[in-house]
């Protein structure tokens, strides 16, 4: 019975011991090597008396060794929590106040940063841990006591109040996602993935687990390479990468910097994306240069383990259209509920709520926030049935596909009308010369921040062409570049208070 992701690792180790599991620019670990390193780290942590389900923070850049730290923590029965090494120390301290990790696993490069967070007795250098001889019997004993609802990892997301939230994800949730994705996307040992997302970000979850489950190979691409994507594409071509799970931003930059024109990456067969809206303009550029790949638009918050719905793109889209987010993944339940918690009819906009094994165990050490977002399904009052309220507004189109409309929190009432700021953004982001737009509501005015070479008058014209009068932005603010928050999304909180003359 499949109850732990360690079963994935051990099965692949048995089937493909000498095959490359994970490759970075410094070298490669085969399945046997990866499993051996993981057991060494696991044995070391057991020696350190790591308690069951204790948190182990991993402070490292993305590289092969991070895998050894994650899998080693898992062997020892702990919960791994990947950290952003580049985050300011204040933010890391806030996270540590919430997670209270038993140990930090780090490397020589980040040892000093680690020592600003915890005392020396709680810092583990990975290279030290790797010197431990694996005690297989002891690790097996630990695994015997574990169940699939035990936590596997914690991913931190920003909270609206400024205190980060740690999303706790179980083995069962990851297995649920990985099994479904592997079947739906026909993954096998032939897959060669190129990782883009940092490991502290939920977008890397398929890279980690779809790779190991299928005996495939993961190539870790350094983050800084994405500033000049030609190099990334050359790597893809040289290493015959055939599958990627990237965030739309990375696909957008690659398209806009004309890298696709220069390097033939038709070796890519499966191109999957998730995390934000993928604009049709850049999708069409990819489609032009890599026409035969399968493109999949995934949707889902970290709270439901990478993704809950997806759409395999099966028709052509014009740039002013939006890509659907598709239908619920197998074994995932989605409900679209109106303000009275009644099911929406097709075409009606409501909040997307998600049920199923992929739903997180909650926010670590934060019962209040957990209770707000993970709630009883109002449609089944007679037994425990937890759903996650995404705060995302969606509706079903005439084909039965779910369309993303915007965030619930960005719904405003303006001159008596109910307006989704996301709708204004969608209307204007397809305008020629627009890189990004963000709409906020300040002092009873709709303010549009925009980035790109577009002239304000053209934007106004487009707005007038596509929106009712009450939805027209009153103030247009050109931004050299949009402010981003720690999660790499547009910082709306900042834009709501940025010093702009709102008259």
């Amino acid at each position: 019975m499949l109850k732990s992701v360690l079963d994935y690792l051990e099965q692949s180790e048995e089937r493909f011991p000498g095959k490359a599991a994970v490759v970075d620019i410094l070298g490669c670990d085969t399945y046997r090597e990866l499993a051996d390193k993981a057991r060494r780290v696991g044995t070391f942590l057991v020696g350190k008396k790591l308690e069951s389900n204790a948190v182990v923070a991993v402070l490292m850049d993305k590289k092969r060794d991070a895998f050894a730290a994650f899998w080693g923590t898992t062997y020892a029965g702990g919960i791994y929590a990947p950290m952003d090494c580049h985050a300011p120390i204040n933010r890391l301290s806030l996270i540590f106040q919430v997670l209270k990790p038993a140990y930090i696993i780090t490397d020589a490069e980040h040892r000093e940063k680690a020592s600003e967070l915890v005392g020396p007795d709680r810092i583990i250098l990975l290279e030290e841990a790797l010197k431990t001889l694996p005690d297989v019997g002891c690790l097996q004993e630990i695994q015997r006591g574990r169940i699939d609802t035990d936590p596997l990892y914690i991913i931190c997301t920003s909270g609206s109040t400024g205190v980060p939230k740690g999303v706790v994800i179980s083995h069962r949730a990851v297995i649920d996602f990985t099994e479904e994705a592997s079947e739906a996307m026909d993954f096998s040992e032939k897959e060669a993935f190129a990782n883009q997302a940092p490991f502290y970000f939920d977008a890397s979850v398929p890279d980690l687990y779809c790779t190991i489950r299928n005996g495939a190979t993961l190539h870790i691409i350094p983050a800084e390479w994405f500033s000049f994507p030609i190099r990334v594409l050359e790597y893809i071509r040289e290493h015959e990468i055939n599958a990627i799970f990237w965030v739309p931003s990375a696909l957008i930059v690659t398209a806009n910097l004309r890298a696709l024109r220069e390097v033939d990456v038709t070796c890519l067969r499966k191109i999957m994306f998730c995390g934000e809206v993928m604009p049709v303009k850049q999708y069409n550029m990819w489609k032009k240069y890599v026409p035969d790949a399968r493109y999949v638009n995934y949707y889902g918050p970290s709270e439901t383990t990478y993704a809950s719905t997806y759409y395999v793109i099966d028709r052509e889209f014009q740039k002013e259209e939006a890509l659907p987010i598709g239908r619920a993944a197998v074994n995932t339940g989605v409900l679209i509920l109106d303000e009275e918690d009644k099911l929406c009819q097709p075409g009606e906009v409501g909040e997307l709520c998600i049920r199923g094994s992929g739903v997180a165990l909650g926010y670590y050490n934060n019962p209040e926030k957990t209770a707000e977002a993970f709630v009883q399904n109002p449609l089944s009052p007679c037994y425990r049935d937890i759903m996650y309220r995404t705060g995302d507004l969606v509706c079903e189109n005439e084909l039965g596909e779910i369309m993303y409309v915007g965030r619930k929190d960005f719904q405003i009432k303006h001159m008596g009308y109910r307006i989704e700021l996301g709708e204004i953004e969608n209307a204007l982001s397809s305008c020629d010369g627009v890189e990004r737009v963000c709409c906020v509501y300040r002092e009873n005015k709709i303010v549009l921040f925009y980035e790109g070479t577009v002239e304000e008058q053209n934007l106004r014209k487009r707005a007038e062409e596509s929106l009712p009068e009450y939805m027209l932005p009153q103030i247009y603010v050109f931004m050299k570049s949009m402010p981003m928050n720690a999660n790499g999304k547009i910082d709306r909180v900042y834009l709501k208070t940025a010093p702009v003359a709102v008259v």
Partner: protein
Amino acid sequence: MERITGVLDEIMNGQEYVDCDDFLEAGLLDSMDVMDLVEKLEEEFDIEISGRDIIPEKFKNVESIVKLIESYVGEL
């Protein structure tokens, strides 16, 4: 030269870059900045920079960017 530093001033947003030998290594340019920079340079000099030229070596520092632009418009 001033036209290039004018563009860079905008992108760098107050970061000290003039004496920097390697923008990328110093963490001064992320992927969004590169996207902006290419666009602004193209606008300023009315050129289209080939994808082949959008590589780290050509955007290393002020000098290399000047050289890159000169390869399109002649000596500045």
